[in-house]
């Protein structure tokens, strides 16, 4: 028996949904259950992020799901996006559940913005960061990326090459925040600094309101989950590290890749589309290298040579990614992977049969 993604659903992605995150979770879940050809009574498992504010009991009360016999939540932020699918797959493969509903929903632009220095509960683990001014993700991540930039002599314009490619996909995706709004590198360079010397506004993901849901089932019709893995390494953090030996590599992603290739029996050359989590553009460079699509320091030329864009050898983030489509904590990238395998993407890659999804420290190989 295999685990499959049997249904996907979402709300619109916006800057102000005008309704509660619970309603977004319920609407996305309702759509995913219907897409799977199921009814709420078929769902017997539930998975989301530890950070998700939509309680399991509240979600099933909205949907009329009579009972759950399995629940799980994954740690941390967007690095866990693919871990939700791994947890659901583990549940259905072990018989702990038959159909697991996964949801992630928030008003991340109109309410608590991830990109702002928000008040947070006192935690001494932040004593090494907050007093020194690392109070937003852009700064936290930027401090690692700067070493990569220095090592390979890159400038911010090099990171902009990724944004231009992502925005080209977003421009032809009606579901994307930046639909019909492609940019040039000059536009990227004209956007304001967020964190000097490496991140401009257009290097940052689109804080969004919205909900995404999937159903993972034991067997039956759907996209095959050929591999699902997490990688947490000592000294690392969410999707960055200050304490690994070499900050210019992403060892979590390399560990993840080894596991994904081993589980699925495929390799980098077999991947038709790659969906790569990007809170900020430089993290795509580190992941392309860590996943083995190019060598250390080669991502800049790999992107500049057109490999990841429309018609390239490795189309990346064909929905426009989290910079172009919207930031639903990386979960919307999994939906795009499913659409590519169903042949229903707005930017369909012909004959896409094998798609890799990387969320930095969790990942998937999905196949037709």
């Amino acid at each position, binding site marked *: 028996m295999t685990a499959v993604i049997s249904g996907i659903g979402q709300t619109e992605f916006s800057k102000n949904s005008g309704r509660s995150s619970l309603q977004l979770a319920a609407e996305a879940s309702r759509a995913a259950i219907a897409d799977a050809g199921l009814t709420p009574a078929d769902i017997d498992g539930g998975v989301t992020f530890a950070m998700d504010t939509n309680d399991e009991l509240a979600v099933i009360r909205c949907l009329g799901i009579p009972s759950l016999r399995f629940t799980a939540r994954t740690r941390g932020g967007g690095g866990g996006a693919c871990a939700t699918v791994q947890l659901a797959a583990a549940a259905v493969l072990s018989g702990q559940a038959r159909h697991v509903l996964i949801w992630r929903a928030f008003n991340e632009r109109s309410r608590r913005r991830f990109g702002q220095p928000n008040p947070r509960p006192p935690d001494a683990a932040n*004593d090494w960061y907050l*007093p020194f001014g690392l109070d937003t993700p852009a*700064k936290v991540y930027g*401090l690692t990326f700067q070493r990569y930039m220095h090592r390979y002599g890159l400038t911010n314009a090099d990171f902009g090459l990724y944004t231009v490619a992502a925005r080209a996909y977003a421009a032809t995706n009606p579901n994307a925040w930046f639909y019909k709004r492609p940019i040039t590198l000059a536009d990227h360079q004209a956007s304001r600094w967020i964190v000097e*010397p490496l991140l401009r506004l257009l290097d940052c993901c689109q804080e969004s309101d919205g909900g995404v849901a999937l159903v993972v089932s034991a067997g039956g019709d759907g996209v095959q989950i050929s591999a699902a893995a997490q990688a947490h390494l000592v000294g690392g953090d969410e999707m960055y590290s200050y304490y690994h030996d070499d900050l210019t590599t992403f060892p979590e992603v390399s560990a993840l890749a080894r596991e994904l290739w081993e589980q699925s029996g495929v390799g980098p050359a077999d991947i038709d589309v790659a969906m790569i989590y990007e809170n900020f553009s430089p993290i795509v460079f580190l992941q392309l290298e860590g996943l083995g699509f190019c060598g250390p320091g080669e991502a800049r030329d790999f992107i500049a040579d057109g490999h990841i864009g429309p018609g390239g050898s490795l189309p990346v983030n064909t929905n426009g990614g989290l910079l172009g489509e919207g930031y639903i904590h990386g979960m919307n990238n999994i939906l795009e992977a499913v659409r590519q395998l169903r042949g229903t993407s707005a930017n369909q890659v012909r004959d896409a049969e094998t798609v890799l999804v990387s969320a930095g420290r969790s990942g998937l190989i999905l196949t037709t």
Partner: protein
Amino acid sequence: MPRVIPPVVDDDDRFFWDGVARGQLLIQRCSGCGVLRHPPVPMCPQCLSTEWDTAPSAGRGTVHSWVLSHHPTEPDASPRIVALIALEEGVRMVSNLTGVAPSDVVNDMPVSLVFETFEGNVTLPQFEPAP
């Protein structure tokens, strides 16, 4: 004098902030195997000992990486340079650079420790270009 977020200070890092109050930069050192570790944790990942003492840093290091930290939406009069300092004792530590213009910061530049006190009587270890 800019305002900074004060440290929370908990069981596992009280020694560090007590050291800062005395003008010392202390690194946690395993009593079992001598390994230095930062940020501190209550158990040595090398030998699993929970016994430790502290080693005062000589306060010399290099700038491993750095960013200029502006508030994302509010104009701030004096944005801070945040730097990841590679201390010569072999551990890395997030801190700030002081006494240097952002345009003069280069990776691997040698820096030395100073202590600065900010609004609300919060003292932080900071680094300035080495003499």
